[in-house]
């Protein structure tokens, strides 16, 4: 191991520890804040099984699953964004902008639409099937976007433009089907379009956990391929990487991460776009460093946004996707101004 790499490794661990500490602090702040305030001391007491029944109810049944979901979704979307930006060599790629999120959302809505008589949407079986439905929708969306952007190869800019168009089309279908299910209710449709942790319960946490635990390490394992792809397709194949098959596999991982996240959190935009940029700023261009930092940063940002959304105008709850957009759209504009 050469000294530069050792130094990088040290920096990585410092950054990761720092982020983990921030997540821990925010975790307790998020748990204690809300319509019913619980002092941090009582939070710790309750977690150690010494709280009142009421505190236990608030923490274990309502807040804790929501916060854990926010952490999982944030990490998933951020890593998905890292992979997408890596394989398309496009700084503006993101599952939200490319329409993958909306595709997953549409698929979940269709799933609920056709199976709502057979299955109760809050039953545990349908909660475990929902990420699979979202995954299928996300894959279909990715294939459609890739095929439509294909014109003797995939130009990154065309990919983004096609993504914007496909996104608008999926949103339209989503609105139509949502209103067919319940014409009076605009709310559910907006959940899928703006992003909201809409069904925070333990079943969802357990449904989502295996996806993240399997897919994020796989992404980390493939970091080397992503690094090589960054050098351009010719160099990559010259160095012995089977570029197309690696790219397809990584695309599948990114789409699966986005799909699972959308099933629980709706179409949260911009998070997958902005986080990888910040991680690159801190850690440089190597993906074995970017991926873990992005995962923690994404988790932190989504948890903070969720807490802001719940408390800013309490008792009104603002969907977390709106807060994320507000926080990260200015950074996106900044990136837009800078890139050529």
């Amino acid at each position, binding site marked *: 191991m050469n000294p530069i790499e050792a130094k990088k490794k040290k920096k990585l661990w410092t950054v990761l520890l720092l982020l983990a500490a921030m997540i821990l602090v925010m975790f307790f702040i998020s748990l204690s804040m809300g319509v019913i305030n619980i002092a941090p001391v009582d939070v710790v007491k309750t977690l150690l099984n010494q709280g009142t029944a009421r505190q236990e109810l608030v923490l274990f049944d309502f807040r804790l699953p929501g916060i854990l979901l926010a952490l999982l979704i944030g990490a998933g979307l951020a890593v998905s964004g890292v992979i997408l930006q890596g394989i398309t060599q496009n700084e503006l790629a993101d599952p939200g902008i490319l329409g993958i999120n909306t595709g997953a959302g549409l698929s979940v809505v269709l799933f609920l639409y056709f199976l709502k008589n057979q299955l109760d949407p809050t039953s545990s079986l349908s909660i475990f099937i929902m990420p699979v439905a979202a995954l299928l929708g996300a894959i279909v969306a990715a294939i459609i976007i890739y095929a439509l952007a294909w014109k003797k190869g995939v130009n990154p800019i065309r990919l983004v433009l*096609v993504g*914007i168009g496909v996104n608008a089309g999926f949103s339209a279908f989503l609105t139509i089907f949502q209103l067919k299910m319940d014409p009076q209710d605009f709310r559910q449709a907006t959940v899928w379009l703006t992003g909201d942790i809409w069904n925070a319960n333990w079943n969802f946490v357990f449904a989502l956990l295996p996806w993240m635990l399997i897919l994020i390490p796989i992404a980390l394992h493939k970091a080397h391929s992503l690094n090589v792809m960054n050098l351009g397709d010719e160099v990559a194949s010259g160095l012995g990487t089977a570029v197309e098959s690696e790219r397809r596999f990584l695309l599948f991982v990114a789409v699966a991460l986005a799909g699972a996240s959308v099933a629980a959190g709706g179409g949260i935009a911009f998070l997958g776009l902005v986080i990888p940029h910040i991680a690159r700023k801190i850690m440089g261009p190597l993906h074995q460093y970017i991926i873990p930092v992005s995962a923690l940063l994404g988790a932190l940002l989504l948890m903070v946004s969720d807490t802001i959304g719940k408390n800013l105008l309490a008792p009104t709850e*603002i969907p977390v996707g709106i807060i994320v957009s507000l926080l990260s759209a200015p950074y996106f504009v900044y990136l837009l101004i800078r890139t050529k």
Partner: protein
Amino acid sequence: MRSFIHHSNTSKIIIHILTILALIVSIGLSVSYGSTKIDFATVWQAVFQFNPDLTSHQVIQELRLPRAVSAAFVGAFLAVSGAIMQGMTRNPLASPSIMGVTDGAAFALVLMLAFAPGISSMGLIASSFVGAGIAVALVFMIGSFSASGLTPVKLALAGVAIGTMLRSVSSIISLHFNLEKEMGFWLAGGLDGTSWSSVQILMISGAIGILLALSISKSITVLSLGEDMATGLGQNNLLIKILGIISILILTGAAVSIAGAVGFVGLIVPHITRFIIGTDYRWIIPTSILFGALLLVLSDLVSRLVNAPFETPVGAITSLIGVPFFLYLARGSGGGK
């Protein structure tokens, strides 16, 4: 391109007459179809021999006719705005919904309803002009600060960013002030709730906005050839651009305050118009008026039939028509650079 140049004025006039006939027929269809179907004879009588004792006549006069007429106006306004934008910026993707203008107008409307609930309908329209103006200013600012100018892709992305930001703030306000229903309506677009007073508002704004657009149409043609060319021909580009933007704001502001964010009309109609009628904006603008009106009257009709007896937001219908078109443009000229 040669075939367009050789279009004679007669053939253009014939196209216009045919479109007007199609528009009248589709307004007739729009009035006749609905939750209860009313036959054409009754529609005819309700318009020309109105009998206030008959319910069907009442429905036509008070609900369906103003709705169809409003749809025609809104479609025309959005199409003309899109035509002016595309002519001025020479950008094939320029249009009110892509550039976040509709989101800006909706933002101002929600703001007004939240903080000044007693506002008059004229005040609402004025505020939606201002909101539309803010969005346009922001998008152009991003363009002028940008490293390589406002390319079609950057325009689309800047529009997405500004639109998302404004929509986020509107959502927060509407959630806090219990305006979700109004907000949902503006986001999705719809023509229910239009009455003769909406038609009146649209007529006044249209008289100003469309006359302004027509009066600068010749200069927009010159501008669409390139700014240097226009300056060389002795044209005051700044004045033309300001007048053009004012007319866009009036037309889009009025359209959004009546019908919400109806996307893609302003994008596709000017392209179809240019394809059929050529590159002269003295023709493009009047033809866009007719095509835009026709498109929205028909979309509104479809939006009522697709999930009857419930209404589907007309914005969802126009998106479904517009998306393939946008993709075609994105694959072609827009994605080339």
